[in-house]
């Protein structure tokens, strides 16, 4: 009896004692807001719960050149906020040692609803995506091993990893999960179009005429609310003789997937030019002319484009007005998505 009391006493003491040990504070949970009327996201938040500390760590990593071999190519060098996180004004993006990417950098928006990533859908999880540009010799040209070495030498990163994940250990998984926590928060749902849908604003006449034309001629592939149905389609863009990009067939091996690419989202289309998987369309007008005039219909052309896409100049004018309503200025200028310390620039030297 005496032994049981002593052992029970020791156990109770230990339990109470652990309550007073400082294990570090738990990270602050972040809520992922699903815009009204949108479907549930597909990203598995259970495996990677959103926290403020995880988001801030992911943001710092996103803007950090050290994830690249020579320090010049953070994720943000190709994914620029003012271009909805696409590469502004570049058909292909710059990579290490004067190289170029082989495809146009897509906008990063509403990623939590995507099941597959890249123009050919080759990446099946958001956490896995950064590995591709990080290790590609014509992009960031770095190894995860080196990144971990660089970050581990930085006391600020060690502290941020501890705050986000509970210990200062920096691993492949944690780096990717932190980046995902930042990226899933890049939600664009406050364009003029969105406000009109919520009854908070009204289209002007050209915009509303353009919306009607859009629903009739474009929405089968560029479906609302994401302005893509996430499918892979062949819209008869002839294969570039240098890039020789087979599209989805490279991933599935299926000949019927030749020259199929993911339908891109048209949100923020006004700022994500050039267009197309290789950025060959520098202006929206080039896209319209492809669909109404230049495209050559063949046996593998998507069934919805067998008769091309007739568009009059009038319709193009209205469509353009509508597409401009997909620009979400709040998203493009949100300081939460800007580089850390963006609002705290270093002091300017006063010269008198």
């Amino acid at each position, binding site marked *: 009896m005496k*032994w049981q009391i002593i052992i029970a006493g020791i156990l109770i003491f230990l339990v109470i004692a652990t309550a007073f040990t400082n294990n570090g504070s738990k990270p602050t949970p972040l809520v992922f807001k699903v815009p009204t009327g949108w479907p549930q996201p597909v990203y*598995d938040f259970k*495996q*990677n719960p959103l926290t403020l500390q995880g988001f801030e760590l992911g943001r710092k990593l996103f803007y950090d050149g050290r994830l690249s071999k020579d320090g010049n190519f953070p994720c943000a060098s190709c994914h620029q906020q003012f271009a909805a996180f696409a590469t502004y004004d570049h058909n292909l993006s710059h990579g290490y040692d004067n190289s170029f990417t082989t495809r146009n950098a897509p906008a990063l928006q509403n990623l939590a609803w995507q099941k597959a990533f*890249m123009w050919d859908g*080759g*990446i*099946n*999880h*958001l*956490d*896995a995506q950064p*590995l*591709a540009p*990080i*290790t*590609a010799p014509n992009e960031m040209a770095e*190894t*995860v*091993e080196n990144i*971990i070495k660089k970050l581990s030498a930085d006391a600020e990163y060690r502290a941020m990893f501890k705050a986000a994940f509970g210990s200062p250990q920096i*691993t*492949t*998984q944690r780096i*990717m*999960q932190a980046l995902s926590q930042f990226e899933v928060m890049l939600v664009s749902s406050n364009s003029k179009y969105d406000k009109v849908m919520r009854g908070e604003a009204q289209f002007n006449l050209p915009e509303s005429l353009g919306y009607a034309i859009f629903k009739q001629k474009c929405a089968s592939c560029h479906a609302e609310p994401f302005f893509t149905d996430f499918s892979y389609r062949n819209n008869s863009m002839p294969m570039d003789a240098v890039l020789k990009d087979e599209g989805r067939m*490279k*991933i599935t*091996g299926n000949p019927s997937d030749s020259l199929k690419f993911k339908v891109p989202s048209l949100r923020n289309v006004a700022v994500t030019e050039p267009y197309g998987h290789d950025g060959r369309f520098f202006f929206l007008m080039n896209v319209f002319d492809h669909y109404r005039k230049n495209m050559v219909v063949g046996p593998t052309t998507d069934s919805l484009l067998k008769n091309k896409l007739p568009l009059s100049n009038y319709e193009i004018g209205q469509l353009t007005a509508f597409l401009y309503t997909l620009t979400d200025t709040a998203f493009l200028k949100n300081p939460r998505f800007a580089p850390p310390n963006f609002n705290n620039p270093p002091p300017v030297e006063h010269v008198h």
Partner: protein
Amino acid sequence: MKQLYMLMLGMLVVIGSFAQKIHLKFIPLAGNTSLVLNDSIYQTKAGEPITVRKFLFYVSHIHVKDVHGKTIPVKNNYYLFSASDTATWNIPLPIQPQMLSAVSFTIGVDSIKNVSGIQTGALDPMLGMFWTWNTGYIFAKLEGNSTASPLPQQTFSYHVGGYKHNENASRTIHIPINSSHKVSTITIGANVLSWFNGVNDLSIKAHPLCHSPGKLAMQIADNYSNMFQLLKVQ
């Protein structure tokens, strides 16, 4: 006080007996001899001479059967064997040494782990067994040189993977064991030369490279599923 010491001693004996394991040991071979990386030249079935620089494979879903044919549960872990790192040759299984009738394991990584994002430990993409552009694990890797290769520097490189049902390169290996005593170590040879012969003989001249899932990867997996042989049971 004496009872306390007896209790502690008893606990140590019990814990100590749980700490005994069965070891699954893989030895890289080239034919009948131990594989020597880089320097030694071996001949494939097609008569193509090879030197081997890298030889790795994932071992997962290990099962053992007792003498009654009953499967003994083993905690599901993933192990990466690498011929250049002898520390990876030995897999300790948390099972009591006992008489066994068979051991089985999968060369590959199941589809769940291929679609669930970034993993840790032996499945860390940093280990170089993960395709970044077409998400999925490389189940087995064989790289080296051959004068028969048409590639620059006469290299050959086989990265075999594929988890999707129409290009599944996962292979489950069954090895019967005839033990008349308690087993504590199972030593299995993994013969690199088996990669080159099977229903579809592999010619370096014709196919020096395999870097994506598909038909060639599945054929190579079929070949190397015969690379294992029981060497020793202790």
